[in-house]
Every structure is written in structure tokens, then in C-alpha cells.
């Protein structure tokens, strides 16, 4: 009887809450007068193309090639602890279980996650035992190989920004709040300008205060036009569509679309993101969906990647803020779990501090 009573209480709670809380969105009295939402202003009125500002001296951004080499110092700064620490541990006189535990802790502290850390430790253990080496150089190459295997150099990390005839390549940038999406779009625009591409920016972040202004200033510096909505809270899908449309009309090579940050457990916002992508696809294929992840993100990064992958099918990851003390190890777990490679890394606040990711250089920077 007890069980039933409690069960009944639970069920009744559910039913009552169900009835009270879940209301159907109400139609206004007298029905809808228009097929558009109130906050959805027709494109011709609301969205204006911001003309290239007459900037007398447009900046000439640095080419993306060789950036990683230049930024290597910063990467090393953030990661020396990891590579050096591991090496020190590995070259101890006797490697006992405590040492292996310390190695595991070191890896865990890089946000690598329990599974990846355990695997790397097991692999190292096996190889050290089999090869029985104490030679530092050999240990180093061994560590390098294992870490490289973890980062997986075989994945295709090139950005698909080649325009199809008549249609620009479309890159959609998504992510949770505060990871640096707008900044990434701005920096990416510079990379593309350096490659002599015609770029168009779409400010589909219509939620955050002043996000569109921020993007516009990025664009203006390298003479890239920005399509934005004049009023806050416009439908992001419509702004994105207009941007791609403008990109087609002006024969741009690449259209970069910035979106508002959203937490992955906000289903409504994730649906909105899905809509943005679908609406863009009415005008042109979306070639690249980049998920921006902050290097400080912990295990939640995996959930982020999963949910965003379901909503918009992400094709690459941009790891930002890697110049701090955080190692961003979570991307390893994401790569392994979802097969989505890291394509770009942000290594500083400077405008040209976004570099293409290269697995080998990355690992070298960590270990050397």
C-alpha cells in the first residue's frame, strides 16, 4: 500500500504540473493578421548591407601559413608543464605504480578525460615495459608517438572554403556563450582575406548586446562587408539568409555566419540553430560548421559537441584561448568520440593569433 501511495503522489504531482504548466502557445485574440512574427521584420526593410567603409588604409593580415610556428612559443607556455612533466616522470630511475598514477594525474589535469588518460597510460606502460628503455631521447620519441596517436594526424583538417561556381562557401560558427565565436569569425575573415578571398560576414548573433557592432568592426578593418539587422532580437535565420544571399549577389567566395552563443541544453535555442542552418541551405550549401570550444572547458565539452553535432552536424572544432594555462584536452575526447577534428586554434588576443591546427607541430610544441 505504501508503495502505491507514494507512487500515486508522484503521478498526481506529475499530472497536476502537466496540466498547469504546459500551456499551448496562445494565438492572439482575433488570430494572426500577418504570416510574419512580430519580431521578424521583412528583409528589405530591416536588414541593410553595410557598405565598405571608406577606410583609407585597409590592413593586410598576415598569411595563415607559418602562424603556428610563430605562435609556438605561446603554445609551449601553456603546455610545457604537460610535456616536460611527463618526460620527467618517465625518465625516473624506477617507474612504479605511483609514478604511473602521477602520469595519469598529469594527463587528467589537461582535461583529457578519464578514458583517454587511462588509455595513454596503458599504452605507455606496455611500451616502456617491452622496450625497457631508459634513454631520454628514446623515451621522448616514444611519448611523442603516443601523444601524436592521441591527437590523430590522419584526420582532414583543411577548411572547406572553396566556392562552388556561382555560390560562395558558407561557414557557420556555433558554440556556447563566451567562448569567442565573434572574435573567431573576425580572425577567420582575416585569414581568408590573406588568401585573397572575397569574404562576407553575417551577424546572426541578434541576441547579445553589441555583438553585431563587434563583428562589423572586425570586418571593417580588412574591408569585409557585414550583413546585419538594424534592430536587436531579429530572427537570426533571416539575417543569415540575407548574408548568404548578399554573398551570392556580390559573388563573394566565402560567407562567414556568426551565431549567438547558446547552452546546449536549451532545446529551443538549439532548434533555432537548426533553423538557421536549414534556412541558409535554401540559398547555398553550408560547407563548414565550426564549433568553438574554449580551452578551459572541462568534460562538459563532450556534451556540447554531441548536442551541437546532432543539431547542426559540426564539421570542425576551433579551440580558443589556448594561450592561457588551460590545455584544452577535451578536444581529444571529442575527436575520438565523434570524429570531428580540431581545425583551428586561437593562441592569443592579437588579430592574427588564429592558426590552423597541425597535429605534429602541436605535439612537438608540447614536448620540446
Amino acid at each position, binding site marked *: 500500500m505504501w508503495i502505491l501511495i507514494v507512487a*500515486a503522489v508522484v503521478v498526481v504531482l506529475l499530472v497536476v504540473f502537466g496540466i498547469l504548466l504546459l500551456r499551448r502557445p496562445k494565438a492572439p485574440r482575433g488570430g494572426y493578421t500577418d504570416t510574419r512574427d512580430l519580431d521578424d521584420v521583412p528583409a528589405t526593410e530591416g536588414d541593410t548591407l553595410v557598405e565598405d567603409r571608406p577606410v583609407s588604409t585597409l590592413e593586410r593580415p598576415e598569411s595563415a601559413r607559418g602562424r603556428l610556428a610563430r605562435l609556438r612559443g605561446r603554445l609551449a607556455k601553456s603546455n610545457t608543464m604537460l610535456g616536460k612533466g611527463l618526460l620527467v616522470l618517465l625518465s625516473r630511475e624506477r617507474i612504479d605504480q605511483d609514478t604511473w598514477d602521477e602520469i595519469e594525474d598529469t594527463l587528467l589535469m589537461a582535461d583529457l578525460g578519464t578514458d583517454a588518460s587511462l588509455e595513454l597510460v596503458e599504452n605507455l606502460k606496455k611500451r616502456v615495459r617491452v622496450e625497457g628503455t631508459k634513454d631520454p631521447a628514446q623515451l621522448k620519441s616514444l611519448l611523442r608517438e603516443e601523444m601524436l596517436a592521441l591527437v590523430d594526424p590522419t584526420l582532414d583538417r583543411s577548411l572547406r572554403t572553396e566556392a562552388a561556381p556561382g555560390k560562395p562557401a558558407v561557414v557557420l560558427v556555433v558554440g556556447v556563450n563566451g567562448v569567442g565565436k565573434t572574435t573567431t569569425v573576425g580572425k577567420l575573415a582575416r585569414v581568408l582575406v590573406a588568401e585573397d578571398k572575397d569574404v562576407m560576414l553575417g551577424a546572426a548573433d541578434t541576441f547579445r548586446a553589441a555583438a553585431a557592432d563587434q563583428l562589423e568592426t572586425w570586418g571593417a578593418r580588412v574591408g569585409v562587408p557585414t550583413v546585419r539587422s538594424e534592430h536587436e532580437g531579429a530572427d537570426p535565420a533571416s539575417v543569415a539568409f540575407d548574408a548568404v544571399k548578399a554573398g551570392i549577389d556580390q559573388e563573394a567566395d566565402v560567407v562567414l555566419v556568426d551565431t549567438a552563443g547558446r547552452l546546449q541544453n536549451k532545446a529551443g535555442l538549439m532548434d533555432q540553430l537548426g533553423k538557421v542552418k536549414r534556412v541558409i541551405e535554401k540559398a547555398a550549401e553550408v560547407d563548414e560548421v565550426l564549433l568553438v570550444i574554449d580551452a578551459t572547458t572541462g568534460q562538459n565539452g563532450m*556534451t556540447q559537441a554531441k548536442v551541437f553535432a546532432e543539431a547542426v552536424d559540426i564539421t570542425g572544432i576551433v579551440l580558443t584561448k589556448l594561450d592561457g594555462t588551460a590545455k584544452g584536452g577535451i578536444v581529444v575526447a571529442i575527436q575520438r568520440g565523434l570524429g570531428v577534428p580540431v581545425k583551428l586554434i586561437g593562441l592569443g588576443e592579437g588579430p592574427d593569433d588564429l592558426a590552423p591546427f597541425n597535429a605534429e607541430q602541436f605535439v612537438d610544441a608540447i614536448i620540446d
Partner: protein
Amino acid sequence: MFNSLSDRLTATFKNLRGKGRLSEADVDATVREIRRALLEADVAVPVVREFTAIVKERALGAEVSEALNPGQQVVKIVNEELQNVLGGETRRINLAKSGPTVIMLAGLQGAGKTTLAGKLGKWLTDQGHKPVLVASDLQRPNAVTQLQVVGQRAGVPVFAPEPGATSESDDPTGDPVKVARDGVDFARAKLYDVVIVDTAGRLGIDQALMNQARDIRDAVDPDEVLFVIDAMIGQDAVNTAKAFDEGVDFTGVVLSKLDGDARGGAALSVRAVTGKPIMFASTGEGVRDFEQFHPDRMASRILDMGDVLTLIEQAERQWDKTEAERMAKKFTDQEDFTFEDFLAQMQQLRKMGSMKKMLAMMPGAAGMREQLENFDEREIDRVEAIVRSMTPHERVAPKIINGSRRARIAKGSGVSVSEVNQLMERFAQAQKMMKRLAQGKGVPGMPGGIPGMGGAGGGAAKKGKSKKKSSRSGNPAKRAQENAALASGQKPAAPGSAFGAQGKDLDAESLNLPKGFEKFLGK
């Protein structure tokens, strides 16, 4: 497969039942699981190490031998210890005795400082203060503009004499230290009693910016320095917290983005490393999504347990027993749920206090916060008025309510006919659901079944979940239920519905309630 700590521990102890005492080996196995759970919740490695040592010591002690179920007992120990570390008391803001109270915000880039400034302003306004926001973040492009917009949304004035950087190329003009100092003078002159200083986000290792923050701190002599940290942060929380503790010596911590599904182990790390209390939690994008921090709830969150227990405990205390028994009987006899029952249950619920508070305790409530926020308590009165406008006959047999009766009911309760229609519709669905439940069937189409649900928890998030066993629901409590469902070989009810994942069968074993629930079932 096993996601929540209590699930895992229960599995670890499966073979131990009846043993009554834990051996060292058992405890070791347990501690490994705890370690893993904490690491997955992003608690920093050194903190985990320390924490597990304490738990191990306590678990080996005498306490456990008394326990009926060692697994539960260990979870209890872990929970208590977590609460210990997180700090028991909620700490309130220190207000200055004379002159304006100065609150300074510091944190990493993208932690949510500017947004938080608005929320804090709004919160203080609601408490009867007169706050002013000071825009000392002259570094990030358009940060000042953002603060102005945020201030406008929150209805709090903004002191921004410098435009700050408007593009990445601008070298920041103006002196943030001077702005902060002027802001305090401005507040003093204009009789604002709280000054909230928004500073530039910085990386922990950026010495120049850290010095600037230090200078601002020295200049305005704040009563509180709040360190804003993202709940999603991983192992770097320790470095960051240490750097800021040394840099600006903060007095309290604000955990932001807690409305996400990160478990927020950072809270534990920061607290353990710096010993500074966590004061507030920021839980959404609106200016009102801001609350005092509750250590006990955070402990459950880190451990991935829902708050249903509190809810049931409360129900147990308040619920009229005869009424509950009547309900239970009705339920087993598969009688129709009528408006009479509905009214009776509403009375019971009311005794338990604020509906909003109870709803927040429901598993899955986190995902529906938006709806919760919009939920108007008076809505209940309105619904009750509608039901009370029905004749007793209509309440028992809602089917007879035709068009003209509806018009009369609407008139009687002062609502429009469409509102009556909506209630009828929702009621019919609830009735159907009750029947299905009583028959021991699941509630498959719940999200679609109850209209308006799709926006709450459905959508993209739910697509993959029923496909893959390994995928995890974003919500801790729901996840536990999914797993329980998987374990018992049932197809999980479409996740995404906070209600759908609940009891499928009236058999207590497969009721899919969180672990630890058994004790309420009298076992």
C-alpha cells in the same frame, strides 16, 4: 552505462549485500568510482585526491557497518563531505557601513562578468538598493556598449565616461582605474548606495591585466570582490582561481552558466583551493536569472542526483494520508481521473507551499527553467476558478461539457472560452496518461502528447538519446532514470520530457525513480 555515482556504487556493492561491513578492498573499489565520478564532474585532480582520502577514512570507520546498504551509506558520506567542502552557510553580501558599497567583478574572458553586472544590479534593486554600474572594461571591443544595454534591460543606471575600445584595432583609450574611482565618486555624489565595477576579462597568466585589476582594487577599495567563474570550466579552475586569488584577493565566487548541464565541479575546486565562499549562481540569460548559491544542491548536482527526495519528503509530511490512499485505490482500479480529484490534489499541493519551488525540485526542472520563470502562480487560481465554475456533475463526467456549457463556465470564471477549451484538452490528455500509467504501459508520446512540451526539453537534444545507449541526457536526474530504464531492459520514454521519463509501471522496482528512493517506498 552507469552514470550517476550512486548507480555506480550500487553496482560496486552488488555482491556485498548483507555483508554489513566493508573491507579495505571494497572501500578501495568505491573510492576509485568516486574519484572517477568527481573527475567527470570536472573537480580538479588535487582536490579529488584530498577528497577521496577523507571519504576513504570515513568509509573505513564504524559508520558504515551500521548501514543497511553500504552503497547508499557511502553516497551519504560523499554527499555530506561535499557539502562540508562547499560550505554550509549561505554567505550574504557585505554592505558598507557608510558611503556606497563597492562591488568589483573579476574573472576570465567570457565568464559572463558584464551580464552578471546587470543581474547583480537588478537583484540589488529588488532588495531596495540603488545600484549603479561602472564600465571599467575598456579592453574588449564594445564591452561598454554591452554594459549599457545590459543596464538598460535591468533598469540600472550605467556610469560610462569612456567609450572604451570599439574595435579590435583600437588601443584602449582611457584609464580603467580612473573610471572606477570616478564611478565611486559619482555614486557618492548622486547617492547611489551600491557601485558595481565591471572590469576587463583577463587570462590568469596575463600579468599586465592582473596588475590593472589590482590597481582598480586598490583605488576603489571594494567591500566585495566577486570572482566570476564559468560552471563549465575544467581542470584549469585551480590555476585560474589561484591566479585571481593572488591577483585581486577576491572575497566571494559567482558560478555562472549554471543553467547549462555542466556538473560544476569547479565550484568544489575553487572552494577547496581558495577557501573563499561561493555566493551566487547565475542561471540564465535574463536579468533575473540570478540566485543565492545553495551548497547542498550543488553537492547533489556534482554527484548527479536529483532533488526528488526533498520533494517526496515534503509530500510525505504534508500529504493527507486518507486522500493519498483514496488516490492510490482509484489508480489501481483504473478509474478515470476527474476534475473532483484534480481539485482535491490541488488543495494538497497548495499545502506544500509555493508551486514554483516544488516544480524546481522536480527531476528535469533544470531544463524547464524558462517555463518555470514564466509560470505565474495565479495561473493556478485561474484554473481552479474554471473548475469551480463547473457543476458537480460536469466535474465527474467532463465528457458532457458541450459548447454551451463551456460558454457558461467561461462566463462564470471570467476567462475566455478558448481558455476553458485548453484546459479541457490538457485534462483529457492527462486523463489518458493516467490510464496508460495505471495499465502499466509507458508514456511513449509524452512530449508530443502534452502540447507545448516540445519547446521545453525536446528538439534536437532528444534525437540521439534514444538511439544510443551511451549517450547521456543533459539532466542529471533524467539521466539516472534513463539508465535505470536501460538497465531494466525497457525502452526509455522519450527523454526531453521531464514527465515522460517518470514511472512507467507501478511496480516499485521499475518505477525508474532515483536510487535511494527505495527507503521512501518502505523497503
